[in-house]
């Protein structure tokens, strides 16, 4: 069976993010980008299913030219085909989902994995919107997945436990940490990926339902207080918890 994986190319979470002076945009200069960590679980699951039961895996990514880096890495890790939907604009989840929807339809895919959210804007909405547009079933935050014929069984993480769900294809699965242990790209995979072509298309939909008005950085943390390790210190701690932190 052919399987789709939607991948977003996001700033490395270890990088320091700066905002441009007019607060309207993020300053991405010299920020390293990576595959969205949740998408790595999505990718691994797709590769495993393909290894077991055959078919072709497709990685689809929307964005500027830089997303090719992540697509190349996907190919090096074991994805068969890569599609870059090009746009210079920062699109919101609904516009991203519309573009992905067209691509998934044209590839005739019935099983699509993606991360439960992208760690850049954390909307956690694209998968759900996409399934609605496609008329697919959707299971979010999956930590386990199995497929038997057209029957899908998945476990999702919920507050304090797990929920087990069953559905059928076609389906969108959004991946949570724990779904699997993603593999590394191998040197041979990297060599093979070099020879592969990344298909390019232009984004057909660029109209967003939401508009970014501005950004702000969180306030810097103030320095911690060190109290003495004697009974005076304990008294002071109780006083601070009560009067400043107001925890009781």
């Amino acid at each position, binding site marked *: 069976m052919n399987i789709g994986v939607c991948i977003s190319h996001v700033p*490395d*979470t*270890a*990088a320091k993010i700066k905002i441009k002076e007019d607060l309207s945009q993020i300053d991405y200069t010299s920020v*390293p980008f990576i595959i969205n960590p949740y998408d790595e679980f999505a990718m691994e699951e797709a590769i495993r299913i393909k290894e077991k039961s055959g078919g072709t895996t497709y990685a689809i990514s929307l964005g500027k030219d830089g997303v090719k*880096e992540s697509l*190349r*890495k996907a190919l*090096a890790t074991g994805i068969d085909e890569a599609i870059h939907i090009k746009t210079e604009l920062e699109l919101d989840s609904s516009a991203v989902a519309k573009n992905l929807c067209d691509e998934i339809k044209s590839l005739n895919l019935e099983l699509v994995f993606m991360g439960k959210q992208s760690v850049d804007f954390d909307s956690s909405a694209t998968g759900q919107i996409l399934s609605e547009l496609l008329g697919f079933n959707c299971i979010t935050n999956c930590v386990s997945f199995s497929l038997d014929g057209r029957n899908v069984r998945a476990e999702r993480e919920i507050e304090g436990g797990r929920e087990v769900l069953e559905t059928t294809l076609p389906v969108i699965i959004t991946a949570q940490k724990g779904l699997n242990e993603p*593999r*590394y*790209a*191998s*040197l*041979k*995979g*990297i*060599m093979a*990926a*070099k020879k592969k072509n990344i298909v390019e298309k232009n984004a057909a939909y660029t109209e967003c339902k939401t508009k970014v008005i501005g950004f702000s950085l969180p306030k810097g943390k103030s320095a911690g207080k060190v109290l003495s390790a004697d009974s005076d210190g304990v008294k002071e701690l109780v006083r601070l918890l009560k009067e400043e932190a107001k925890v009781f």
Partner: protein
Amino acid sequence: MNKFIGVDYYDTSGLLSEEEILVRDTVREFVSDEVIPVIERYCRESTFPMEIIPKLAELGLFGTSLPQKYGCAEMNSVVYGLVCQELERGDSGIRSFVSVQSSLVMYPIYTFGSEAQRQKWLPGLAKGEKIGCFGLTEPDFGSNPGGMITRAEKVDGGYVLNGAKMWITNGTIADVAVVWAKLDGKVAGFLVEKGFKGFAAPEMKGKHSLKASVTSELTFDNVFIPEENRLPEGNGLKSPLMCLNQARYGIAWGVVGSMMACYDSALNYSKSRIQFGKPIAAFQMTQEKLVYMLTEITKAQLLNLQLGRLKDSGKLRFQQVSMAKRNNCEKALEIARMSREVLGANGILDEYPVMRHAANLESVKTYEGTHEMHTLILGEDVTGIPAFE
């Protein structure tokens, strides 16, 4: 722990290809996930993390430049260098394992071996199912390997080997030893297999350096070596020296990984350690150290990259490798010691990587040609006068 995103003050990444960057970043992530969390434990126990071998093989890190038909990735020398650099950010012992397997075992089998020897050994070595070692140094012949006393004698159907090697990385765990011995007064290469009668490889204990690496003696007591285990193209001392040149190239890159680990540690520590009411990073003398480290790292990176490009274009001279090995090992050791100073007493703890790197680098500065020997190689190159004897 903060994720390590590299040290690249001069944007040397901009000089790398997409695949080179992908290899570097993949190995970097692998080292952060699989090496750094476990390495201190192995160092304390003075053992090599055997379970890492199949993982290194799965990534394709053995014999990276050799042909795909032997199960290798067939990538360029810059890739090999970057692999060494990233592994040594984890630990010099892990990098040593890969250097020996790739440059000192797979390379000579590929370069001096017969097609049958290549077929027999290379795929298994690439998969990490077989481990190799390289025996050149002897108890009494280190910097002067030409004086070796290990001898092979021609007999019916093969050779008989007698003698001993010392300081052999991977010796005890190796399935095959590439051993250099004198045959009729000339250096020849032999593939000595584990289990050959009269061959033993006891481990050397008590190292304060490269603790997560196996170092052994090899002893040969009338060991019969069948004809098909002689490397047919290995002729004279030049052959093992060609291997060393490959490995030295990897070391020149590798130690930059140690430098980055130490610098990163010192930089982070100096920003959080408060003395006299300020982070120690606010003191000029600390800043001077950090700037010195960063400058030396940047110089070493540029040296390596051009060295790699020369190697890939076939223009490399071995003396150029000596310059990089000599410079980078010395600077790495200096940076490790400086970083230890920045960390104060904490610098000696194994909670931080610096003392481990400092101790490892003492070996790295000595093996594959000591600092002094590389000085003499370069001295001869610039003056035309050899000063070895």
